[in-house]
């Protein structure tokens, strides 16, 4: 009897101690590096500035699948009229567009102190959907082809050269298809943009359902191309195989590449190449669900995350992303050596020439579905 009383008392104690502290729930899509950023860096920083607040980070998985999970949760809670479980969400562009269209997000950027620090159109346009006021870019990322210069003497400079190289060197190139990570998805959309003729239309619109037919030749070529490549399990899978020497080249996220190199998970001699006519990059967005109890804390969290100091120290220095706010705001907050290292393999002019965004939402979905129908099947 007494043991039961002790157990009940202990449980009650546990309950009260968590209930008295305020909890900020942050849900983030993307790879493990996204969760680690909040758990190891941003969370403790915010907790120091706001004593009594606990930041809880939840990862929902890489790729659009992770953002899809956040969308499903917010949609279900919205339909049931319940407040959202998450106070801050970090999502991909496609899901951000869908959530804004369905009124699942709060408009907060206009009153945010750091809201004016970003002028890129990625802050207002997400794959063709107007999201201005609802999102703040967390970072801008870029995909590129990572390669081992010891094994590859003449690096291909364009998709056409890459296709010919892979034909001559089978099973040396690997990517993850469209499942398991966005680096493979980026490669596929870059391929379609390169070989289908009208890359600008894919990026800016307008959407024309008949455009699908023009991709048949490009997709047939991709099917041929796939016969000579290794399909990896995902973003980390491609990097892992590059590390083990099982493939010599593959599309990767620039930030993951540099982070893995810094952690010793990738050999220091590996290099990057941004092939023409371009490979996509994407921002990920900070957003606040429409019906959350902690919206004041949430906006303060995002203000901290998009402040120049945190962007310089956290985004660029620690995690090797390109900043979400405009780069000029980071002047003085970042030492030149760190900045130069980010642009070592891909200089700013190559980035502005070949760094593209993903196709607009409807084209994006069409490309993915056509890939499954015509290339994977």
């Amino acid at each position: 009897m007494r043991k039961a009383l002790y157990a009940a008392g202990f449980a009650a104690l546990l309950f009260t101690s968590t209930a008295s502290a305020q909890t900020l729930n942050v849900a983030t899509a993307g790879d493990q590096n996204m969760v680690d950023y909040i758990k190891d860096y941003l969370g403790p920083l915010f907790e120091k500035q706001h004593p009594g607040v606990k930041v809880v980070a939840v990862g929902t998985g890489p790729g659009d699948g992770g953002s899809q999970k956040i969308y499903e949760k917010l949609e279900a809670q919205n339909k049931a009229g319940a407040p959202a479980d998450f106070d801050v969400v970090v999502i991909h562009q496609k899901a951000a567009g869908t959530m804004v269209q369905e009124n699942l997000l709060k408009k907060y950027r206009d009153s945010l102190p750091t809201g004016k620090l970003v002028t890129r159109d990625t802050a207002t346009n997400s794959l063709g959907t107007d999201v201005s006021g609802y999102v703040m870019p967390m970072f801008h990322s870029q995909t590129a082809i990572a390669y081992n210069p010891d094994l590859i003497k003449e690096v291909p400079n364009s998709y056409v050269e890459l296709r010919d190289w892979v034909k001559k060197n089978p099973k040396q190139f690997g990517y993850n298809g469209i499942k398991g990570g966005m680096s493979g998805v980026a490669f596929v959309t870059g391929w379609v943009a390169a070989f289908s003729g009208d890359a600008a239309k894919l990026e800016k619109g307008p959407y024309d359902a008949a455009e699908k037919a023009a991709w048949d030749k490009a997709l047939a070529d991709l099917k041929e191309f796939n016969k000579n490549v290794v399909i990896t399990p995902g973003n980390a899978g491609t990097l892992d195989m590059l590390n083990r020497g099982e493939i010599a080249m593959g599309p990767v996220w620039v930030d993951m590449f540099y982070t893995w190199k810094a952690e010793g998970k990738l050999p220091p001699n590996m290099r990057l190449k941004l092939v023409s006519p371009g490979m996509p990059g994407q921002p990920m967005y900070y957003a606040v669900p429409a019906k959350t109890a902690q919206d004041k804390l949430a906006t303060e969290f995002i203000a901290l995350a998009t402040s120049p100091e945190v962007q310089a120290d956290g985004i660029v220095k620690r995690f090797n992303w390109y900043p979400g706010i405009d780069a000029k705001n980071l002047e003085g907050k970042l030492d030149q050596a760190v900045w130069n290292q980010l642009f070592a393999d891909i200089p700013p002019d190559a980035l502005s020439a070949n760094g593209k965004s993903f196709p607009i939402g409807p084209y994006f979905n069409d490309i993915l579905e056509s890939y499954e129908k015509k290339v994977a099947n």
Partner: protein
Amino acid sequence: MARPSFFGLLLIAPALAMIGVLFLYPLGFSLASAFTGPDGGASLASFQKAYELYSTDILFTLFIVIVSTLLTALFSIAIAGILTLSETPWLVAVLRSLYRWPLFIPFIVAAQCMRTFLAKNGLMNNSLVALGVIEPIQATSLLDWRGIIITFVWKQVPFVTLMLAGAMASIDRATIEAGRNLGASRLRVLIELVLPQVAQTLLVGLVLSFVTMLSVLSVPMMVAGSQPTMLTVDMAFRINSYGDYATANALGVISYVIAGTVAWIYLRHNVRREAQV
């Protein structure tokens, strides 16, 4: 026949309720979702989409599971046969202690082990190179359909062998002795005398293995790449990336049909046997 007593019905009610709620209701919901079109009426649109996107994967799944089942049967009969008919005591003792270990390892752990074992620079290839059996340049990665089959067979052989060895131990030894006395080789005794007597148990084990392998997600997801892949990975992809429950349920119905066909074959064989007895 006695009238079912009220108390008897009450006793089985919780079990029935659990089956109803946790199996029959989701099954019905899944079937309804698979046969509903985008406009809400009955249609086969989801099946059409599943076929357009995943027809190769359906054939791939059938191929993998059928080959794995046949190989499992082969290895299980071999090991159970050695355990029953061998005249080398130390071999039997060693085999008996070793063959059961994979039983206790979950599929996902087995998949992870195979990832490091079967990779191009994995343990198997490195050992073969160290032994001088192959050159480093010849090392290939087995992390494709072959890896999936190897993992499945490795996991399911102990299960079927366990059932088979038990069945073989319980048949009348006189039949084996008689065969040996008349000069039959042990292989002939195994195939012509022992196997027909334990065929029922073998069939049960193989059907259970077939359905288990059809339902595994972790092994194809971790061991092989994504093209082609098994239906379970496609179902997970459809739900996780698109929230497309209709197509996922259509793929589920296709899995039910495959499993149902195998179950029907087993039941027919069983009924025919019951009728003969």
